[in-house]
């Protein structure tokens, strides 16, 4: 049975394989998610624990590990943001989560984020000022637009990365990786804000 498995599934990921190599993919960011899904199901079937019910304990363990690796890899790669964050991590470019040295955030962005959070706070305090609600609606639109803008820039940087990988140009890779890291940092602020604004607006609607 084990020989059978390795014959059918010779591409079983070696220990410590990265998620791209699990699916035999190059470290590129443009990815056909339908093809990924199909590969995920195909490979999952090949290593599925049911097929190893009669096999040795070792083989069963292997089947479980492969299955969970496939799941982690699939879940990470199918989401473009998680995919990008993961890529930067395995490339050694830390986007956020860099431990003890916070990256620089543009001061204007901080000031803006802080201001909006203050406004949200006021709304949550529920003083019912209708103007505040209008302001928040405006803020929601604005921050959704800015999130979309960041996503647009991110898409461009991802393209550049893929081109650099194809061309094998290390410097261009480094530059686009750094840009993606900075954009992902910015995106976290925007995403938080959008979420908070929506929550604040949803809460007041609910009360009305």
């Amino acid at each position, binding site marked *: 049975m084990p020989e059978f498995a390795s014959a059918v599934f010779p591409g079983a990921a070696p220990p410590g394989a990265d998620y791209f190599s699990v699916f035999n993919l190059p470290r590129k960011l443009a990815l056909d998610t339908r093809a990924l899904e199909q590969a995920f199901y195909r490979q999952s079937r090949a290593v599925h624990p049911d097929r190893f019910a009669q096999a040795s304990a070792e083989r069963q363990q292997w089947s479980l590990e492969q299955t969970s690796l496939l799941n982690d890899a699939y879940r990470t790669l199918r989401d473009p943001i998680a995919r990008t964050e993961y890529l930067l991590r395995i490339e050694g470019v830390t986007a*956020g*989560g*860099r*431990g*003890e*040295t*916070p*990256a*620089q*955030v543009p*001061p204007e*962005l*901080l*000031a803006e*984020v*802080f201001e909006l*959070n*203050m406004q949200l706070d006021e709304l949550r305090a529920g003083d019912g000022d209708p103007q505040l609600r209008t302001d928040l609606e405006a803020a929601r639109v604005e921050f959704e637009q800015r999130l979309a803008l960041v996503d647009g820039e991110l898409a461009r940087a991802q393209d550049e990365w893929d081109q650099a990988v194809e061309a094998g140009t290390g410097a261009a890779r480094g530059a686009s990786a750094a840009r993606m890291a900075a954009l992902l*940092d*910015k995106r*976290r*602020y925007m*995403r*938080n804000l959008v979420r908070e604004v929506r929550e604040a607006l949803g809460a007041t609607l609910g009360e009305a």
Partner: protein
Amino acid sequence: MAYSDKVVDHYSNPRNVGTLDKSSSEVGTGLVGAPECGDVMRLQIKVNPQTQIIEEAKFKTFGCGSAIASSSLATEWVKGKTVAEAMAISNTDIVKELALPPVKIHCSVLAEDAIRAAIGDWKQKNGMAETEAAAQPVATTA
């Protein structure tokens, strides 16, 4: 994740939440952010111009419990200290006091950065910008 008692205490009963007059020359404002989570923290100090003692400190943090506790603790600690003494507060002191787990170290770094940024702002306002580079959050070494 389980927060330590001290974190819970500061979180549920934060000290010195509020705002000081940003435009006063005695007030220094530090606004910092942690891009890994998208949290923001503002810490303000009011310094006695004669003694250089920090007489008041206020904070406002939009972030996780550890960030709120760290900044609450930071305001308690800087009060009554001279500016020079306050500069010596490091995030490891905060980590120890609050028993923060490794994943929450960046929250304490944020508080340290906020103190330095507030002092830097105050120094700049008062024409002491020569040491300002050392007070910039980006220049701190963790």
